[in-house]
Protein backbone atom coordinates (compact mmCIF):
# COMPACT_ATOMS: atom_id res chain seq x y z
CA UNK A 1 0.00 0.00 0.00
CA UNK A 2 2.83 2.34 0.90
CA UNK A 3 6.57 2.04 0.46
CA UNK A 4 9.25 4.47 1.65
CA UNK A 5 13.00 4.14 1.05
CA UNK A 6 15.73 6.32 2.53
CA UNK A 7 13.45 9.33 2.67
CA UNK A 8 15.20 12.60 3.48
CA UNK A 9 13.70 16.04 3.97
CA UNK A 10 16.28 18.77 4.36
CA UNK A 11 15.45 22.36 5.29
CA UNK A 12 18.08 25.10 5.23
CA UNK A 13 19.96 23.90 8.32
CA UNK A 14 17.73 21.19 9.75
CA UNK A 15 17.15 17.67 8.59
CA UNK A 16 13.47 17.13 9.39
CA UNK A 17 13.43 13.56 8.08
CA UNK A 18 16.73 11.74 8.15
CA UNK A 19 16.74 8.75 5.85
CA UNK A 20 13.79 6.62 6.91
CA UNK A 21 12.53 3.41 5.28
CA UNK A 22 9.34 1.55 6.08
CA UNK A 23 6.23 0.14 4.48
CA UNK A 24 2.55 -0.03 5.32
CA UNK A 25 0.66 -3.22 4.45
CA UNK A 26 -2.87 -3.51 3.09
CA UNK A 27 -5.53 -3.36 5.77
CA UNK A 28 -3.30 -2.51 8.71
CA UNK A 29 -3.38 0.43 11.07
CA UNK A 30 0.11 1.85 11.10
CA UNK A 31 1.17 4.54 13.55
CA UNK A 32 4.00 7.02 13.73
CA UNK A 33 4.63 7.63 17.43
CA UNK A 34 6.92 10.40 18.57
CA UNK A 35 7.19 13.85 20.11
CA UNK A 36 6.61 17.14 18.27
CA UNK A 37 9.39 17.87 15.84
CA UNK A 38 10.28 14.21 15.29
CA UNK A 39 9.37 14.49 11.60
CA UNK A 40 6.04 12.64 11.69
CA UNK A 41 3.92 15.30 10.01
CA UNK A 42 6.64 16.21 7.53
CA UNK A 43 6.81 12.58 6.39
CA UNK A 44 3.05 12.23 6.16
CA UNK A 45 2.77 15.48 4.20
CA UNK A 46 5.37 14.25 1.73
CA UNK A 47 3.29 11.09 1.27
CA UNK A 48 0.13 13.18 0.80
CA UNK A 49 2.00 15.08 -1.95
CA UNK A 50 1.78 18.34 0.01
CA UNK A 51 5.57 18.75 0.25
CA UNK A 52 8.40 17.70 -2.04
CA UNK A 53 10.98 15.25 -0.73
CA UNK A 54 14.70 16.04 -0.78
CA UNK A 55 16.08 12.55 -1.33
CA UNK A 56 14.89 8.95 -1.40
CA UNK A 57 11.77 7.39 -2.83
CA UNK A 58 8.15 7.10 -1.75
CA UNK A 59 5.31 5.19 -3.37
CA UNK A 60 1.70 5.53 -2.26
CA UNK A 61 -0.81 2.97 -3.57
CA UNK A 62 1.85 2.03 -6.11
CA UNK A 63 2.35 5.58 -7.42
CA UNK A 64 5.47 7.71 -7.18
CA UNK A 65 4.95 10.92 -5.14
CA UNK A 66 7.55 12.78 -7.19
CA UNK A 67 5.81 12.33 -10.56
CA UNK A 68 3.17 14.96 -11.32
CA UNK A 69 0.96 12.63 -13.38
CA UNK A 70 1.08 9.94 -10.68
CA UNK A 71 0.23 12.47 -7.95
CA UNK A 72 -3.22 12.74 -9.53
CA UNK A 73 -3.75 9.03 -9.00
CA UNK A 74 -2.52 9.26 -5.41
CA UNK A 75 -4.99 12.04 -4.68
CA UNK A 76 -7.85 9.89 -5.97
CA UNK A 77 -6.85 7.01 -3.71
CA UNK A 78 -6.14 8.66 -0.36
CA UNK A 79 -8.28 10.34 2.28
CA UNK A 80 -6.69 12.79 4.69
CA UNK A 81 -7.37 14.32 8.07
CA UNK A 82 -4.69 17.01 8.14
CA UNK A 83 -3.15 18.43 11.28
CA UNK A 84 -5.21 21.40 12.60
CA UNK A 85 -8.15 20.41 10.44
CA UNK A 86 -10.61 23.17 9.56
CA UNK A 87 -13.61 23.47 7.27
CA UNK A 88 -15.83 26.30 6.06
CA UNK A 89 -17.26 27.82 9.25
CA UNK A 90 -20.68 28.81 7.99
CA UNK A 91 -21.40 25.54 6.22
CA UNK A 92 -23.06 22.69 8.06
CA UNK A 93 -21.46 19.36 8.79
CA UNK A 94 -23.30 17.79 5.87
CA UNK A 95 -22.41 20.61 3.45
CA UNK A 96 -18.74 20.44 4.36
CA UNK A 97 -18.63 16.68 3.80
CA UNK A 98 -20.58 17.08 0.54
CA UNK A 99 -18.07 19.66 -0.67
CA UNK A 100 -15.21 17.20 -0.26
CA UNK A 101 -17.33 14.40 -1.80
CA UNK A 102 -17.99 16.53 -4.89
CA UNK A 103 -14.26 16.79 -5.55
CA UNK A 104 -14.18 13.09 -6.47
CA UNK A 105 -15.72 11.34 -9.48
CA UNK A 106 -16.82 8.49 -7.24
CA UNK A 107 -17.71 8.79 -3.59
CA UNK A 108 -19.77 7.20 -0.85
CA UNK A 109 -23.22 8.45 0.10
CA UNK A 110 -22.69 11.43 2.37
CA UNK A 111 -25.55 10.25 4.61
CA UNK A 112 -23.84 6.88 5.11
CA UNK A 113 -20.57 8.51 6.16
CA UNK A 114 -22.42 10.82 8.55
CA UNK A 115 -24.03 7.74 10.07
CA UNK A 116 -20.72 5.90 10.31
CA UNK A 117 -19.20 8.77 12.27
CA UNK A 118 -22.36 9.11 14.39
CA UNK A 119 -22.86 12.68 13.30
CA UNK A 120 -26.58 12.42 12.44
CA UNK A 121 -27.62 14.79 15.25
CA UNK A 122 -25.11 17.38 14.13
CA UNK A 123 -25.56 17.05 10.36
CA UNK A 124 -27.28 20.44 10.12
CA UNK A 125 -25.07 22.24 12.64
CA UNK A 126 -22.66 24.84 11.32
CA UNK A 127 -19.01 23.82 11.55
CA UNK A 128 -18.14 26.87 13.67
CA UNK A 129 -20.55 25.73 16.41
CA UNK A 130 -18.98 22.30 16.90
CA UNK A 131 -16.70 21.23 19.74
CA UNK A 132 -13.13 20.19 18.98
CA UNK A 133 -13.97 16.48 19.11
CA UNK A 134 -16.88 16.84 16.71
CA UNK A 135 -14.79 18.91 14.30
CA UNK A 136 -12.26 16.07 14.22
CA UNK A 137 -15.04 13.59 13.49
CA UNK A 138 -16.21 15.77 10.59
CA UNK A 139 -12.61 15.75 9.39
CA UNK A 140 -12.51 11.97 9.56
CA UNK A 141 -15.84 11.78 7.71
CA UNK A 142 -14.41 14.02 5.00
CA UNK A 143 -11.33 11.79 4.82
CA UNK A 144 -13.53 8.72 4.31
CA UNK A 145 -16.19 10.05 1.95
CA UNK A 146 -14.18 9.31 -1.18
CA UNK A 147 -13.92 5.66 -0.08
CA UNK A 148 -10.10 5.85 -0.17
CA UNK A 149 -7.80 2.87 -0.11
CA UNK A 150 -5.50 4.59 2.36
CA UNK A 151 -6.51 7.03 5.10
CA UNK A 152 -4.01 9.43 6.68
CA UNK A 153 -4.92 10.74 10.12
CA UNK A 154 -2.45 13.33 11.33
CA UNK A 155 -2.75 13.70 15.10
CA UNK A 156 -6.48 12.97 15.16
CA UNK A 157 -6.97 13.56 18.89
CA UNK A 158 -4.43 16.26 19.76
CA UNK A 159 -5.98 18.92 21.94
CA UNK A 160 -9.12 16.91 22.70
CA UNK A 161 -10.34 16.19 26.21
CA UNK A 162 -10.12 12.53 27.31
CA UNK A 163 -13.80 11.89 26.69
CA UNK A 164 -13.70 13.25 23.12
CA UNK A 165 -10.46 11.37 22.54
CA UNK A 166 -12.13 8.08 23.47
CA UNK A 167 -15.04 8.85 21.14
CA UNK A 168 -12.61 9.33 18.28
CA UNK A 169 -10.86 6.07 19.21
CA UNK A 170 -14.19 4.22 19.06
CA UNK A 171 -14.75 5.59 15.59
CA UNK A 172 -11.28 4.57 14.50
CA UNK A 173 -11.70 1.08 15.94
CA UNK A 174 -14.81 0.71 13.78
CA UNK A 175 -12.81 1.89 10.80
CA UNK A 176 -10.40 -0.94 11.36
CA UNK A 177 -13.29 -3.39 11.12
CA UNK A 178 -14.07 -2.00 7.65
CA UNK A 179 -10.64 -3.16 6.57
CA UNK A 180 -9.31 0.29 5.74
CA UNK A 181 -5.57 0.85 5.68
CA UNK A 182 -4.89 3.66 8.12
CA UNK A 183 -1.74 5.71 8.63
CA UNK A 184 -1.88 7.51 11.94
CA UNK A 185 0.48 9.94 13.63
CA UNK A 186 0.29 10.59 17.35
CA UNK A 187 2.27 11.55 20.40
CA UNK A 188 -0.10 9.69 22.72
CA UNK A 189 1.28 6.29 23.74
CA UNK A 190 -2.16 5.00 24.65
CA UNK A 191 -3.54 5.98 21.27
CA UNK A 192 -0.86 4.08 19.39
CA UNK A 193 -1.21 1.09 21.71
CA UNK A 194 -5.02 1.01 21.42
CA UNK A 195 -5.33 1.52 17.70
CA UNK A 196 -2.22 0.44 15.86
CA UNK A 197 -1.28 -2.96 14.47
CA UNK A 198 2.25 -1.70 13.95
CA UNK A 199 4.08 1.27 15.37
CA UNK A 200 7.14 3.14 14.16
CA UNK A 201 8.73 5.15 16.94
CA UNK A 202 10.20 8.36 15.57
CA UNK A 203 12.73 10.64 17.18
CA UNK A 204 14.75 13.45 15.60
CA UNK A 205 13.88 12.52 12.04
CA UNK A 206 14.68 8.84 12.37
CA UNK A 207 12.68 5.68 12.95
CA UNK A 208 14.27 4.25 16.10
CA UNK A 209 12.07 1.16 16.43
CA UNK A 210 9.32 -0.51 14.46
CA UNK A 211 6.98 -3.42 15.22
CA UNK A 212 3.68 -4.41 16.76
CA UNK A 213 3.01 -2.93 20.22
CA UNK A 214 3.66 -6.35 21.78
CA UNK A 215 6.90 -6.88 19.85
CA UNK A 216 8.15 -3.47 20.93
CA UNK A 217 7.27 -4.12 24.55
CA UNK A 218 8.84 -7.57 24.51
CA UNK A 219 11.98 -6.25 22.95
CA UNK A 220 12.46 -2.93 24.74
CA UNK A 221 9.97 -2.78 27.59
CA UNK A 222 12.15 -4.54 30.13
CA UNK A 223 11.00 -6.95 32.81
CA UNK A 224 7.66 -7.26 34.51
CA UNK A 225 7.72 -6.03 38.05
CA UNK A 226 5.97 -7.57 41.01
CA UNK A 227 5.10 -5.00 43.62
CA UNK A 228 4.46 -5.87 47.27
CA UNK A 229 2.55 -3.03 48.89
CA UNK A 230 3.35 -1.62 52.31
CA UNK A 231 6.17 -3.91 53.29
CA UNK A 232 7.67 -2.95 56.65
CA UNK A 233 11.42 -2.69 57.12
CA UNK A 234 11.88 -6.32 58.28
CA UNK A 235 9.87 -7.74 55.39
CA UNK A 236 11.69 -5.54 52.92
CA UNK A 237 15.04 -6.72 54.24
CA UNK A 238 13.96 -10.36 54.01
CA UNK A 239 12.79 -9.91 50.43
CA UNK A 240 15.95 -8.10 49.45
CA UNK A 241 18.00 -10.93 50.92
CA UNK A 242 16.00 -13.60 49.18
CA UNK A 243 15.50 -12.05 45.74
CA UNK A 244 18.27 -10.54 43.74
CA UNK A 245 16.23 -7.89 41.87
CA UNK A 246 14.30 -6.50 44.80
CA UNK A 247 14.31 -2.85 45.81
CA UNK A 248 12.25 -0.63 48.10
CA UNK A 249 10.71 2.63 46.96
CA UNK A 250 9.89 5.70 49.02
CA UNK A 251 6.33 4.46 49.75
CA UNK A 252 7.69 1.34 51.37
CA UNK A 253 6.60 -0.79 48.40
CA UNK A 254 8.99 -3.54 47.38
CA UNK A 255 9.59 -3.92 43.62
CA UNK A 256 10.95 -7.19 42.32
CA UNK A 257 11.91 -7.56 38.68
CA UNK A 258 10.65 -10.83 37.29
CA UNK A 259 13.06 -12.72 35.10
CA UNK A 260 11.13 -15.91 34.48
CA UNK A 261 7.57 -17.18 34.78
CA UNK A 262 8.23 -19.19 37.97
CA UNK A 263 9.38 -16.24 39.94
CA UNK A 264 5.98 -14.74 40.92
CA UNK A 265 4.97 -18.10 42.38
CA UNK A 266 8.21 -18.35 44.32
CA UNK A 267 7.67 -14.87 45.72
CA UNK A 268 4.07 -15.62 46.65
CA UNK A 269 4.91 -18.89 48.39
CA UNK A 270 7.76 -17.18 50.22
CA UNK A 271 5.31 -14.55 51.51
CA UNK A 272 2.89 -17.27 52.64
CA UNK A 273 5.71 -19.20 54.25
CA UNK A 274 6.82 -16.26 56.38
CA UNK A 275 3.14 -15.36 56.99
CA UNK A 276 3.50 -11.93 55.44
CA UNK A 277 0.58 -11.81 52.99
CA UNK A 278 0.32 -8.35 51.44
CA UNK A 279 -1.39 -6.71 48.48
CA UNK A 280 0.62 -7.59 45.41
CA UNK A 281 0.46 -6.33 41.86
CA UNK A 282 2.25 -7.25 38.66
CA UNK A 283 3.23 -4.31 36.53
CA UNK A 284 3.74 -5.05 32.84
CA UNK A 285 5.88 -2.68 30.82
CA UNK A 286 4.07 -0.26 28.49
CA UNK A 287 4.96 1.64 25.37
CA UNK A 288 5.99 4.45 27.66
CA UNK A 289 8.76 2.24 29.05
CA UNK A 290 9.69 1.31 25.50
CA UNK A 291 9.91 4.94 24.48
CA UNK A 292 11.89 5.88 27.58
CA UNK A 293 14.27 3.00 27.01
CA UNK A 294 14.91 3.82 23.35
CA UNK A 295 14.98 7.61 23.37
CA UNK A 296 15.85 8.34 26.99
CA UNK A 297 12.89 10.71 27.27
CA UNK A 298 9.15 10.84 27.88
CA UNK A 299 6.50 12.69 25.90
CA UNK A 300 4.41 15.31 27.68
CA UNK A 301 0.65 15.71 27.17
CA UNK A 302 1.44 18.54 24.74
CA UNK A 303 3.74 16.29 22.75
CA UNK A 304 7.10 17.69 23.85
CA UNK A 305 10.00 15.34 24.55
CA UNK A 306 11.18 15.75 28.16
Amino acid at each position, binding site marked *: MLEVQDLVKQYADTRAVDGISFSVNDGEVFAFLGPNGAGKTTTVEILECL*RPLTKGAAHVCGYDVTRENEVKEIKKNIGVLPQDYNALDKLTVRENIELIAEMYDKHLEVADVIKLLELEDKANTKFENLSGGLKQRVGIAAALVSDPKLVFLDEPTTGLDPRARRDVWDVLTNLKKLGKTVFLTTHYMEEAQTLADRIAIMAKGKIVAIGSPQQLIDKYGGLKILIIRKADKTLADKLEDKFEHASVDSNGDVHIKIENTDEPYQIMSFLTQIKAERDVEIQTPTLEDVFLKITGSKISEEGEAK
Partner: protein
Amino acid sequence: MRFIAIFKAVTKNWLRSRTGLFFSIMFPIMMIFIFGSIFGGNNYVPTMTAAFIMTNGIIGLTSTNTEFKRRGIIRRLSITPLTKADWIVGCVLSQTLLNLLLTGIMIGIGWIAFSVRVTPDPLTILMIFLGSVMFSGIGMALSGALKDVEAASAIGNVISYPMMFLSGVFVPLSIMPSTLQLVSKFIPLTYFSDGLKAAIITKSTGTTLFDMGVVAALAVVFIAAGVLLTRWKEK
Protein backbone atom coordinates in the same frame (compact mmCIF):
# COMPACT_ATOMS: atom_id res chain seq x y z
CA MET B 1 -17.00 21.01 -13.22
CA ARG B 2 -15.67 21.08 -9.67
CA PHE B 3 -15.69 24.87 -9.80
CA ILE B 4 -19.49 24.74 -9.47
CA ALA B 5 -19.21 22.93 -6.13
CA ILE B 6 -16.61 25.48 -4.99
CA PHE B 7 -18.82 28.34 -6.21
CA LYS B 8 -21.80 27.01 -4.27
CA ALA B 9 -19.88 26.36 -1.06
CA VAL B 10 -18.02 29.68 -0.99
CA THR B 11 -21.19 31.61 -1.87
CA LYS B 12 -23.18 29.94 0.89
CA ASN B 13 -20.34 30.68 3.28
CA TRP B 14 -20.42 34.45 2.67
CA LEU B 15 -24.21 34.63 2.45
CA ARG B 16 -24.34 33.26 6.00
CA SER B 17 -21.50 35.37 7.32
CA ARG B 18 -23.51 38.26 8.74
CA THR B 19 -20.74 40.67 9.72
CA GLY B 20 -18.88 40.15 6.47
CA LEU B 21 -22.02 40.65 4.43
CA PHE B 22 -23.03 43.70 6.48
CA PHE B 23 -19.78 45.50 5.74
CA SER B 24 -19.82 44.38 2.10
CA ILE B 25 -23.23 46.03 1.78
CA MET B 26 -22.36 49.09 3.85
CA PHE B 27 -19.43 50.06 1.65
CA PRO B 28 -21.38 50.70 -1.60
CA ILE B 29 -24.25 52.21 0.38
CA MET B 30 -21.83 54.63 2.00
CA MET B 31 -20.36 55.48 -1.37
CA ILE B 32 -23.72 56.23 -2.93
CA PHE B 33 -24.60 58.45 0.02
CA ILE B 34 -21.38 60.41 -0.31
CA PHE B 35 -21.32 60.71 -4.10
CA GLY B 36 -25.09 61.15 -4.36
CA SER B 37 -25.02 64.01 -1.88
CA ILE B 38 -22.10 65.73 -3.63
CA PHE B 39 -23.01 65.31 -7.29
CA GLY B 40 -26.56 64.04 -7.71
CA GLY B 41 -27.71 62.61 -11.02
CA ASN B 42 -26.28 59.60 -12.84
CA ASN B 43 -22.81 60.63 -13.90
CA TYR B 44 -20.82 59.27 -10.97
CA VAL B 45 -22.57 55.87 -10.93
CA PRO B 46 -20.28 54.05 -13.41
CA THR B 47 -16.97 55.20 -11.89
CA MET B 48 -18.18 54.55 -8.36
CA THR B 49 -19.37 51.06 -9.30
CA ALA B 50 -16.06 50.34 -10.99
CA ALA B 51 -14.12 51.56 -7.95
CA PHE B 52 -15.98 49.45 -5.41
CA ILE B 53 -15.86 46.34 -7.57
CA MET B 54 -12.13 46.83 -7.82
CA THR B 55 -11.66 47.15 -4.04
CA ASN B 56 -13.93 44.16 -3.46
CA GLY B 57 -11.74 42.07 -5.74
CA ILE B 58 -8.28 43.31 -4.89
CA ILE B 59 -8.72 43.97 -1.16
CA GLY B 60 -11.81 41.97 -0.17
CA LEU B 61 -11.29 38.71 -2.03
CA THR B 62 -7.55 38.81 -1.38
CA SER B 63 -8.06 38.80 2.36
CA THR B 64 -10.88 36.21 2.26
CA ASN B 65 -8.72 33.88 0.21
CA THR B 66 -5.63 34.42 2.34
CA GLU B 67 -7.76 33.66 5.38
CA PHE B 68 -8.91 30.39 3.76
CA LYS B 69 -5.27 29.62 3.21
CA ARG B 70 -4.26 30.48 6.78
CA ARG B 71 -7.01 28.31 8.24
CA GLY B 72 -6.01 25.34 6.10
CA ILE B 73 -9.21 25.25 4.03
CA ILE B 74 -7.28 25.42 0.76
CA ARG B 75 -4.79 22.88 2.04
CA ARG B 76 -7.58 20.42 2.79
CA LEU B 77 -9.04 20.90 -0.68
CA SER B 78 -5.64 20.64 -2.34
CA ILE B 79 -5.33 17.01 -1.18
CA THR B 80 -8.41 16.16 -3.30
CA PRO B 81 -8.43 15.99 -7.11
CA LEU B 82 -9.51 19.68 -7.19
CA THR B 83 -7.40 21.73 -9.63
CA LYS B 84 -6.13 25.25 -8.97
CA ALA B 85 -8.10 26.53 -11.98
CA ASP B 86 -11.37 25.09 -10.60
CA TRP B 87 -10.72 26.66 -7.20
CA ILE B 88 -9.91 30.08 -8.67
CA VAL B 89 -12.81 30.14 -11.12
CA GLY B 90 -15.26 29.05 -8.39
CA CYS B 91 -14.10 31.81 -6.04
CA VAL B 92 -14.04 34.45 -8.79
CA LEU B 93 -17.60 33.62 -9.86
CA SER B 94 -18.79 33.71 -6.27
CA GLN B 95 -17.27 37.16 -5.72
CA THR B 96 -18.78 38.29 -9.03
CA LEU B 97 -22.24 37.22 -7.93
CA LEU B 98 -21.74 39.21 -4.72
CA ASN B 99 -20.64 42.25 -6.73
CA LEU B 100 -23.67 42.06 -9.02
CA LEU B 101 -25.97 41.88 -5.99
CA LEU B 102 -24.24 44.80 -4.31
CA THR B 103 -24.37 46.89 -7.47
CA GLY B 104 -28.09 46.19 -7.68
CA ILE B 105 -28.60 47.27 -4.07
CA MET B 106 -26.53 50.38 -4.62
CA ILE B 107 -28.43 51.46 -7.72
CA GLY B 108 -31.71 50.67 -5.98
CA ILE B 109 -30.82 53.00 -3.12
CA GLY B 110 -29.69 55.55 -5.69
CA TRP B 111 -33.17 55.41 -7.30
CA ILE B 112 -34.92 55.96 -4.01
CA ALA B 113 -32.68 58.55 -2.38
CA PHE B 114 -30.60 60.28 -5.00
CA SER B 115 -32.64 60.38 -8.21
CA VAL B 116 -30.28 57.96 -9.92
CA ARG B 117 -32.06 56.84 -13.08
CA VAL B 118 -29.91 54.00 -14.32
CA THR B 119 -31.56 50.87 -15.67
CA PRO B 120 -28.86 48.27 -16.25
CA ASP B 121 -29.23 46.73 -19.72
CA PRO B 122 -27.70 43.35 -20.62
CA LEU B 123 -24.56 45.06 -21.97
CA THR B 124 -24.03 46.91 -18.68
CA ILE B 125 -24.55 43.73 -16.67
CA LEU B 126 -22.07 41.89 -18.89
CA MET B 127 -19.57 44.72 -18.42
CA ILE B 128 -19.96 44.58 -14.63
CA PHE B 129 -19.63 40.81 -14.78
CA LEU B 130 -16.38 40.95 -16.78
CA GLY B 131 -14.90 43.76 -14.70
CA SER B 132 -15.65 41.83 -11.57
CA VAL B 133 -14.10 38.65 -12.97
CA MET B 134 -11.00 40.66 -13.86
CA PHE B 135 -10.53 42.24 -10.41
CA SER B 136 -11.43 39.05 -8.59
CA GLY B 137 -8.82 37.35 -10.77
CA ILE B 138 -6.24 39.90 -9.57
CA GLY B 139 -7.33 39.21 -5.98
CA MET B 140 -6.92 35.45 -6.44
CA ALA B 141 -3.51 35.89 -8.08
CA LEU B 142 -2.32 38.13 -5.23
CA SER B 143 -3.52 35.84 -2.48
CA GLY B 144 -2.23 32.80 -4.33
CA ALA B 145 1.24 34.29 -4.35
CA LEU B 146 1.23 35.70 -0.81
CA LYS B 147 1.33 33.85 2.46
CA ASP B 148 -0.01 36.11 5.17
CA VAL B 149 -3.18 38.12 5.48
CA GLU B 150 -1.48 41.36 6.49
CA ALA B 151 0.82 41.41 3.47
CA ALA B 152 -2.09 40.58 1.17
CA SER B 153 -4.34 43.42 2.30
CA ALA B 154 -1.42 45.86 2.44
CA ILE B 155 -0.49 45.06 -1.16
CA GLY B 156 -4.17 45.21 -2.12
CA ASN B 157 -4.32 48.75 -0.78
CA VAL B 158 -1.05 49.73 -2.42
CA ILE B 159 -2.38 48.58 -5.79
CA SER B 160 -5.93 49.84 -5.62
CA TYR B 161 -5.59 53.40 -4.30
CA PRO B 162 -3.23 54.69 -6.99
CA MET B 163 -5.43 52.94 -9.57
CA MET B 164 -8.45 54.82 -8.29
CA PHE B 165 -6.76 58.19 -8.79
CA LEU B 166 -4.96 57.36 -12.02
CA SER B 167 -7.97 56.01 -13.87
CA GLY B 168 -10.11 59.10 -13.58
CA VAL B 169 -12.50 57.64 -11.02
CA PHE B 170 -12.13 60.51 -8.55
CA VAL B 171 -10.36 63.15 -10.62
CA PRO B 172 -11.21 63.62 -14.31
CA LEU B 173 -8.30 62.56 -16.51
CA SER B 174 -8.67 65.66 -18.66
CA ILE B 175 -7.29 67.90 -15.89
CA MET B 176 -4.29 65.61 -15.26
CA PRO B 177 -0.78 66.14 -16.69
CA SER B 178 -0.20 64.29 -19.94
CA THR B 179 2.23 61.77 -18.39
CA LEU B 180 -0.42 60.69 -15.91
CA GLN B 181 -2.95 60.49 -18.72
CA LEU B 182 -0.55 58.14 -20.47
CA VAL B 183 -0.12 56.06 -17.29
CA SER B 184 -3.88 55.70 -17.05
CA LYS B 185 -3.83 53.80 -20.34
CA PHE B 186 -2.01 50.98 -18.57
CA ILE B 187 -4.42 50.66 -15.70
CA PRO B 188 -7.13 47.97 -15.86
CA LEU B 189 -9.58 50.14 -13.90
CA THR B 190 -9.51 52.77 -16.66
CA TYR B 191 -11.03 50.37 -19.19
CA PHE B 192 -13.60 49.03 -16.80
CA SER B 193 -14.72 52.45 -15.68
CA ASP B 194 -14.72 53.86 -19.26
CA GLY B 195 -16.63 50.87 -20.53
CA LEU B 196 -19.24 51.25 -17.81
CA LYS B 197 -19.51 54.97 -18.49
CA ALA B 198 -20.08 54.26 -22.17
CA ALA B 199 -22.67 51.59 -21.36
CA ILE B 200 -24.60 53.57 -18.76
CA ILE B 201 -24.19 57.26 -19.55
CA THR B 202 -23.23 57.91 -23.17
CA LYS B 203 -24.81 54.71 -24.50
CA SER B 204 -22.10 54.35 -27.11
CA THR B 205 -22.02 50.64 -27.86
CA GLY B 206 -18.78 50.87 -29.89
CA THR B 207 -16.76 52.26 -26.95
CA THR B 208 -18.34 49.76 -24.57
CA LEU B 209 -17.42 46.83 -26.81
CA PHE B 210 -13.81 48.01 -27.14
CA ASP B 211 -13.36 48.43 -23.38
CA MET B 212 -15.21 45.19 -22.81
CA GLY B 213 -12.75 43.40 -25.08
CA VAL B 214 -9.78 44.78 -23.14
CA VAL B 215 -11.37 43.86 -19.79
CA ALA B 216 -12.26 40.34 -20.98
CA ALA B 217 -8.72 39.77 -22.24
CA LEU B 218 -7.23 41.05 -18.97
CA ALA B 219 -9.65 38.85 -17.03
CA VAL B 220 -8.28 35.79 -18.81
CA VAL B 221 -4.70 36.97 -18.24
CA PHE B 222 -5.18 37.51 -14.51
CA ILE B 223 -6.97 34.21 -13.96
CA ALA B 224 -4.17 32.44 -15.83
CA ALA B 225 -1.64 34.35 -13.71
CA GLY B 226 -3.55 33.21 -10.62
CA VAL B 227 -3.30 29.58 -11.70
CA LEU B 228 0.43 29.98 -12.31
CA LEU B 229 1.23 31.97 -9.17
CA THR B 230 -0.81 29.89 -6.75
CA ARG B 231 1.41 27.45 -4.91
CA TRP B 232 -0.36 24.62 -3.19
CA LYS B 233 2.73 22.57 -2.53
CA GLU B 234 4.60 23.74 0.55
CA LYS B 235 8.34 23.73 1.09
